[in-house]
């Protein structure tokens, strides 16, 4: 594996369509969404990542930081020799707002839940794009990102990811007993890199 890098990313553009989709906003007028966006402060955009070699072993995959026999991941990583493992978080700001409005305004809680999810996804997209450009130049193409909990890849892999990327220290991410991340608007994923045919 390469050493873990931790970076801050510039605020990605808001994807209003996604926020509306997550919140079942439909055609409601924008006033609620706008007032929530105005209230949103203190979001950070941070990612820790490293590159790992993967090898087939005992019918599964040795990812250097963990072994998995997930068939879905194997399909996803077909033809890949290396992966990028990353953890990304937008921090506690959405969680604080969700906790607050869960108690006093479920409508706003719903919105901050949606906005937080959109922020985290947009952060992943921005990171993905950065990596894509980097690997493209090196002659690699990226596979779609794949997270613990998708298909047959167990959520418990989060423990390995937290350890190897030192997420607690680098990003402030903590796992609870059910392997859920706090801040809740955090994402971990594996991106396969495949050598382009020349």
């Amino acid at each position, binding site marked *: *594996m*390469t*050493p*873990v*890098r*931790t970076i801050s990313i510039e605020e990605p553009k808001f994807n209003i369509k996604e926020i509306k989709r997550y*919140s*079942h*906003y*439909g*055609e*409601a007028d924008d006033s*609620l*969404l706008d007032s929530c966006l105005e209230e949103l402060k*203190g979001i*950070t955009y941070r990612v820790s990542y490293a590159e790992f070699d993967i090898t087939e072993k005992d019918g599964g995959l040795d990812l250097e*930081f963990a072994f998995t026999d997930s068939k879905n991941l194997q399909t996803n990583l077909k033809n890949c020799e290396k992966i990028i493992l990353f953890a990304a978080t937008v*921090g*506690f700001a959405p*969680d*604080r707002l*969700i*906790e*607050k*409005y*869960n*108690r*006093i*305004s*479920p*409508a706003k*809680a*719903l*919105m901050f*839940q949606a906005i937080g999810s959109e922020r985290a996804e947009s952060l992943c997209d921005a990171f993905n794009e950065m990596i894509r450009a980097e690997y493209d130049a090196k002659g690699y193409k990226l596979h779609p990102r794949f997270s613990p909990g998708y298909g047959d890849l167990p*959520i418990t892999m989060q423990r390995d990811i937290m*350890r*190897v990327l030192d997420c*607690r220290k680098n990003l*402030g991410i*903590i796992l*609870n*007993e*059910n392997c*859920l991340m*706090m801040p809740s608007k955090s994402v971990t994923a594996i991106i396969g890199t495949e050598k382009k045919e020349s």
Partner: protein
Amino acid sequence: MTFRDFLKNNRVCLDGGTGTLLQKAGLPAGVSTEEWNKTHPEELIKIHKAYYDAGSNIVMTNTFGVNAFKYSDSELEECVAVAVSNVKQARELSAAPQEKFVGYDIGSLGRLLAPLGDLDFEDAVKAYSSVVKAAVKAGVDAFMIETMNDCYETKAALLAVKENSDLPVMVSNAYSEDGRLLSGTCPEIMVAMLEGMGADAIGVNCSLGPKQLKPIVEKYLELASVPVLCKPNAGLPRVEDGKTVFDVGPEEFAEEMKDLLNKGVCIFGGCCGTTPEYIKETVAISTNIPLKPIEIKHKTVITSSTKFVDFDDYPILIGERINPTGKKRLKQALAEKDINYILGEAVNQQEKGAHVLDVNVGALEVDETEMLTYVSGEIQAVCDLPLQLDTSDPVAMEKALRRYNGKALINSVNGKEENMDAIFPLAKKYGGVIIALTLDENGIPDTAEGRIAIAKRILARAAEYGIEKNDIIFDTLTMTVSADTNAANVTLGALKYIREQLGCHTSLGVSNVSFGLPERSRANGAFFTIALENGLSAAIMNPFSEEMMNSYYTWKLLRNKDANCLGYIGFTESATSTKTATIQTQSELTLKEAVEKGLKEQAAGKTKELLKSAEPLSIVQEEIIPALNSVGVNFENKKIFLPQLLMSAEAASSAFDEIKAAMDGSDKQGNGVKIVIATVKGDIHDIGKNIVKLLLENYGFDVTDLGRDVEPESVVNKAIELNAQIVGLSALMTTTVPAMEETIKLLKEKYPECATIVGGAVLTEELAERIGATAYGKDAMETVRFAEKYINN
């Protein structure tokens, strides 16, 4: 010499990093460093000794990751003993001439505390207590709590050390580049809270290099009255030739530290990336820098976990609305544990400009001890203002103060011996600024001199407990002028003397002055201004009173405390716009329309207006229920959407609040169907469940919400206890569906006549059927429709 004595007159050199050195010695990636304490003691002793040899006065055990969640009691004790023994052996082996102590290192538990996380505060204290006891048993000279990035967890750790040992304790936090902890906490807050709880030294470590930490350390030096410590990383990490390296070398590190030592840092060391070389270089530089004496700063500061109030920035407004005295609606809310109403009052007062919120829950039929802790905790989850915990019951005070996140305002102590002996030890242990009332066993003196004499006695007694005068705020007691026309003069006379001659901050419950008189707000506003002129620092007041806010803003304007007059201008603008808005709602919208459009304030205002001429029940029947019905139908027909449905429900709730207040709480108008709802065990998602609850309540169901991550037994027992007709369960994750199934199974076994409805992202009609639920609720409206079948059944 004890470490505490050494700390009094000496600069203290700590140790440096351990992790990198262990990796060099062959510690494989992914193995926790503390495992090596037992398996490779020789490597640990070598590193510890190298730090003593480099000049460290105190070397910390390699126990950062050791905690009670990872080990059983006996394992923990052994683990701690081995780690302590390694440092002791290193000390024996080192021939270095300086004083050498053994410190026990405490790090984060790696779990997040409630309300954001799932770890209860007391469980955190308990977990820390286990290691503290083990370390005391193993024999150490001091504790170091370090790299903490959550204010609340820091409090739990410090409390555990204080409760289980008399040894000195240093507390160090890890700040991010924005100058705050991950919990959003700034240095001002940590200094106030940690000093208040009696930390022997405080400061910062990790996360950044000495250069980046400088502004944060300077803040500590400016505010702290105890020794300040600084233990930076060797700069910032970067990747070079496939390896992580830090960008500041030993000499540069020492050079940067020189500046901080000159500014007054008493305790220094290194964190990630530093080695004995860094310590040696810094020690060499430090010997030429004289130790600066520490000044006592006399700050009067209270905090939440993210905001602080410094009383030198007076006048401070303390919102009085969360106090049931004379407030029917709040009494009812407390009796019914209607927390939403109370939280609404908290948020609204903050919006109106309160800086601190008084929290008093003393009412008949209320368990004050439970309620004060519960309410203040819930308020801290929605509102970031510091709180004034207001109770005359020392037991209730202790419980709430203990769990409070930050440094609270304690309301109150008075001149009675018994009272001082009950309250001062609490303030000493948990920290806090205390409101002191100038009354004693003989009552309230009717002269200013009498009240001043009591104030002096209180100060003397506080000093015996080690409480400085800056942590006492005097309330010279506002009495009504309708009983004694000289009353205000006496109050203000004492106030002026205490502020000017005793140098203490002051507070008054301003509105008492007009008790028994007509148009009280006029007199209150004027009295507030006069009191400010006589040295008032803080007022317990109603932030909704325009006259009071008028006094506040105009006094600041005229006394050069309002830069560019912006505060005053903002106040006048908002006062005018509120008036216009009120007029508009009155003329334009009906209550039904306000609910349909989801306008909370207008719905409440309109209800209030209707209550003047109509019966509460007819308003419900003719306006609110029809509005809810049309909203429900529109949602089902996809004419409106989820956010709108919710906003309408919230507007209806605010209308119901007004109705409840008018009905005096005597008669809860429900439809007789009792429903218990919960998010199942293991699942912490509760937005969906809260939406369902809100809607069900709107439709008149009697809903008991057990919260999230609820054990199957708790759900079943509650349903049986209440004789509920329906249990509603929510789960958002596939992994928690089994817990849902288990709950339903247990319910069928113990209480088969109860129906179940389930919902949540992962559920489907088929899955609901498979796990044995009576029904599947696709959304909140469907749940309402299902529950309606049980009315009059």
